[in-house]
């Protein structure tokens, strides 16, 4: 029998549905996550279910007490989610676009991330914040950002960047069951990505990278959308006589150092693809880690492919120039031979 395929959003929806069935303390909150609150003629199915429809239909099954539309008050509802998590609920909060994190940053940086530590371990914050990130949608500077590096820097937060529907479901279930605050990044261009997803619930452990393609000559560590670009680059490299191994860390905090180091030990070459701005990002962090712990494995300098140090431009030719792509990854890898 053929494996069932879901798209990225459907996989996330199923993860939330199954966790809400399993645990009555799981609630969803955010702007338009149900949609059309208090609109008499709207039954659950016609409502938005989030701006990309990822939570569509959940209000019909679980009601508005558990799928809660919020006003456009990011500080308020993210802070409320932190407080609810610290007192017994397990909220999944949807921050529509990662740029909007700017509005509620205190509630993450100074509250949610620090409660457990400051309270001597007497509080836990089992909160997941799902958010849309990434360029390529012509959504301009405030709606196209890739900020996982910023959140990975903050102690007390876990950061998850899935690249496939299978990983999305398993990682979101882990995130919901995790007792820490998890920021879960969903690339805006992933709507059309389909893949095999088991119907039963399953979890993927944090801090365990996935080798998306095995290879011998060069290691490409790729984050989020860069996984797909790197697989395309690897196909091209194969034609050019180079065998690339593509590693998807899947979670950035915690980070699976061993899988990356073992791969570099085998290949001797490392390219890191990250849509972040080029300084103080996850790519530079991985590069520093490999320089520290895997220096003797390297036969060539470490190369990073990132977005430039500019805001995301609106105009299509500028945004195309801005974004990392398979060709840039391919060129970086070839430059190591």
């Amino acid at each position, binding site marked *: 029998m053929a494996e069932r395929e879901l798209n990225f959003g459907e996989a996330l929806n199923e993860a939330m549905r199954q966790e809400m069935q399993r645990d009555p303390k799981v609630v969803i909150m955010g702007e*338009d996550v149900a949609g059309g609150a208090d609109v008499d003629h709207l039954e659950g199915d016609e409502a938005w279910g989030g701006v990309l429809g990822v939570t569509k239909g959940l209000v019909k099954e679980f009601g508005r007490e558990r799928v809660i539309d919020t*006003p456009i008050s990011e500080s308020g509802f993210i802070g409320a989610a932190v407080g609810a998590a610290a007192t017994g609920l397990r909220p999944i909060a949807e921050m529509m676009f990662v740029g909007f994190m700017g509005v509620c940053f205190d509630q993450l940086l100074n509250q949610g991330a620090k409660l457990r530590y400051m309270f001597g371990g007497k509080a836990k914050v089992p909160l997941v914040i799902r958010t849309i990130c990434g360029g390529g949608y012509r959504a301009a500077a405030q709606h196209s950002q890739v900020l996982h590096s910023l959140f990975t820097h903050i102690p007390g937060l876990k950061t998850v960047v899935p690249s496939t529907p299978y990983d999305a479901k398993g990682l979101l279930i882990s995130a919901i069951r995790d007792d820490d605050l998890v920021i879960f990044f969903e690339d805006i261009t992933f709507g059309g990505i389909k893949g095999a997803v088991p119907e039963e619930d399953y979890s993927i452990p944090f801090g365990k990278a996935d080798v998306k393609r095995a290879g011998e000559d060069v290691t490409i560590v790729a984050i989020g959308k860069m996984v797909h670009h790197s697989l395309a680059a690897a196909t091209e490299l194969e034609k050019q006589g180079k065998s690339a191994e593509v590693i998807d860390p899947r979670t950035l905090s915690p980070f699976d150092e061993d899988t990356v180091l073992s791969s570099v030990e085998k290949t001797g070459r490392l390219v890191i693809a990250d849509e972040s701005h080029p300084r103080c990002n996850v790519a530079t962090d991985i590069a520093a880690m490999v320089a520290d712990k895997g220096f003797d494995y390297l036969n060539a300098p470490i190369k990073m492919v990132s977005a430039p140090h500019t805001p995301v431009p609106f105009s299509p030719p*500028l945004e195309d120039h801005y974004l990392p792509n398979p060709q840039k990854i391919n060129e970086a890898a070839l430059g190591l031979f």
Partner: protein
Amino acid sequence: MDIPKDKLLWIYERMQLIRVFETRVSTEFGKGKIPGFVHLYAGEEAVAVGICANLTDADYMTSTHRGHGHCVAKGVDVRGMMAELFGKATGICKGKGGSMHIADMDKGMLGANGIVGGGPPLACGSGLTAKTTGTDQVTICFFGDGASEQGTLHESLNLAAIWKLPIIFVAENNGYAESTPAHYHCSVENIADRAAAYNMPGVTIDGNDLFAVYESAHEAVARARAGHGPSLLECKTYRHHGHFEGDAQTYKIAEENEKYRTELDPIKRFKDAVLARSLVSEAEMADIDGRVNAAIDEAVKFAEDSPFPEVQETFTDVYVSY
């Protein structure tokens, strides 16, 4: 209040210019000519124009994601606007901002904004500049009903009040924050009632009645120019389009939508009012219609014919780029 004839003609021309601009943007977006997101202002024209009829180019304005109408009312060139929406080098922001970040500092237009509630603190800044440098410039701070629940707005109302800043906070209450109705997301029926908490005048008016908007704005602008501090003006209105182009608008009530597109339409109501009182003739308005249509045709042609920016533009206008 009597509005001078030349001002009435200007008002009609600006309202039509917004309507035709937005209708055309919808069409061009549908054809795939305009990338990204667009949030259209059609249906709310009397608010932007009724307010801006009381301003000069030197006055400031902060705007929202639904900012095209504010730009047109403030006198921003529609050719540069259309080119910006097309992502062209001749755009008012060189194609680097797009619909949600359209701005024109020369006209005091401090930017549309992709962040709901992003504008009010900036408005306090331009208000502070005017107050500190001793000019009589006022700032209009447009925000939607959705932004009325943001902390930034409440902090800004308080700041403006304690510093007596020359700001008119204009709530454009179109009934919905995206798909969420105001009666759910807002603790009060009238946003302007909150003015009492910040010790400033608050007025709720029919935002589709150009004359009501003009008069209320006239008073609030005079108060601000005279150094008597901020006001909060709530204009109840309605958007003809969805939150964004492509929104199926299932949350809207069909009869309500129809009513606002016909008998409650702000431009129709303005036309009926001025014709009934013989203030402006059919012929004068037809003449304006012709000029507006030509201007928008020309703007689209200008946008289409303009080049995209060179890729090197990616690295300009930012402190240190690489």
